[in-house]
């Protein structure tokens, strides 16, 4: 998981620093995937137990191994779901904006114009 988060973040940052909008948008998406995985990891994964708080389950915290009834923490999943939904809307917006910029500015460079190359 850590390696996956690291790889996705590295890819995302690399692509974000490109000069073309398509690469930048891909980078943003990679970054949001990395963030979602990160939220999942920070929520402390716990498989095959219900996300229901029953009597006696309060003490089943991180690292507590079977002292009480274990339960999966639903909060990170709710966070990720919200983040995915918001990220989806934002991606849609930025894609449309990039296409509009390509049409209006005639270039897909992020600065809105091709870099000026000075003759040597």
């Amino acid at each position: 998981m850590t390696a996956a988060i690291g790889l996705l973040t590295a890819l995302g940052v690399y692509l974000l620093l490109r000069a073309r909008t398509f690469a930048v948008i891909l980078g943003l998406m990679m970054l949001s995937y990395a963030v979602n995985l990160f939220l999942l990891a920070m929520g402390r994964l716990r498989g095959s137990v219900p996300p229901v708080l029953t009597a006696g389950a309060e003490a089943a915290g991180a690292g507590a191994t079977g002292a009480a009834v274990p339960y999966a923490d639903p909060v990170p999943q709710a966070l990720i779901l919200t983040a995915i939904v918001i990220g989806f809307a934002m991606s849609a917006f930025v894609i449309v904006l990039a296409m509009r910029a390509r049409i209006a500015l005639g270039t897909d460079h992020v600065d809105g114009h091709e870099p000026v190359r000075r003759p040597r």
Partner: protein
Amino acid sequence: MSHLAIAPILLPLLTAMLLVVLQALGRAGGGRRRQRTLSVASAASFAALGVLLVARADGAAAPEVYRVGAWPGPFGIVLVLDRLSALMLLLTGLVALGAMLHAVRQRSDQRAHYFHTLFHLQVAGIAGAFLTGDLFNLFVFFELLLIASYCLLVYGGTVARIRSGLHYVVLNLVGSSLFLVAAGTLYGATGTLNMAELAVRTAALPAADAGLVRAGALLLLVVFALKAAVVPLHFWLPSTYAAVNPAVAALFAIMTKVGVYGIVRVHTLAFGPDAGVATLVAAPWLLPAALVTLALGALGALASRRLRPMQGYLLVMSVGTMLAPVALFDASALSAGLYYLVHSTLASAAMFLVADLVARERGGVDDELVRGPAVARPALLGAIFFAGAVAVAGLPPLAGFVGKALILAAAPSDGRGWWLWAVTLGGSLVALVALARAGSTLFWNTYRDRDDDPFDPVVHGAPTAAPATAGMVAPAVGLLALVVALTALAGPVTDYTTATAAQLLAPQPYLDAVLDGAVPADGGARRAGAGGGAP
């Protein structure tokens, strides 16, 4: 339980929905006037609501907590109305009303559909960010205000707006990712995202977890600093605010304050003076960053060749001015910073409107600071510009001077105080020079003779705007009148901000109000929702 605390979110949201309906019904024609009436009425009611909430927060001993769905303790979504929230909501209402009236007067709301809807969605997002007591809902309201601001930014779709809009959107999307990383880190370290519970848990954390929670706190600082345009995260602001519809730029003057509010709220409540391992984690970074912001904002204003980016740089400078006292985490300094925040938000918003009034009468020269045609009523616009410049530069007799004097009086007598004095006064001088040069160029360096004028509309057939009438300048004058009122009422207002600063720096009533005694301060049960609160 009173439902007044959630009204600042519901009112603009409902207005936005009604406006969509009106837009759909009004396609046949005649709907525009109804939309405007509703929109302005809603903005005015929001401002009135702000007055009501300030009075309510001023009268209450402890912060008022609104539990959405009546969920107990730290489990549900909470909205917290304390003195700071109420003050920021009132400020939002006043600025939004001024910006809305300007947009309607100048007909800049007609360039595309849904201007009013987006405007109110933005206000709803800002209000929610000021009210929420939960880190994740702060993220959600940030996204709400951001997506509305993206649309408002590219509204009208000129080339400059699309170009700067792309930068703004990409930067803020990265900022949102960082916010989530910060929220995840803090959740992993403390097991909560409720700000009050976060404060309790952070204070009780063992030293082994210090790194994690400090990293989370500083990441949050970076996110808020990006929103507030603190150096080195300020590059987006001047070009963005220069390109955007001027009424929207005035509204955006409050948007940078959302970042300032985030810093004040989180770093006094959860990472403040009694935060255990994360005590004042932001303080060593915030003061230098604020002072550099102040200095670079002033220099940027001096170097600007156009009026609108210059106002953007002056906004950056004002953010530095108000964050420097905040970084001292001292009651009198914080109070001075809040007073200056109110003043500078009103003054910046007014100046964005004034810049628009001046620029639209200068034909092809627009807001460029070069010799150009004279405006139709130089005495009227010149006087307004002069008053606005006095306010923004912080000269006596207006409130900016009072605010800066309070900030300097609150400066500590050690090295930090020396830096604060030097940079604040030096920055003010540079801003004064920049504004004086801009004003004299705009109003005095004009073409007397029509034939000399390369931009004259009569000779050269360029499109011209109608000269500003009393009705057109009214919103800008109104905002400046509020600055004058702030000066006249400096006594009561500083009483309010002093009480606000005291409330912020002694957060125990806030914690008691939100948590309702539900969470024991035990560092051990980190991940579990502590028992007593569940029904």
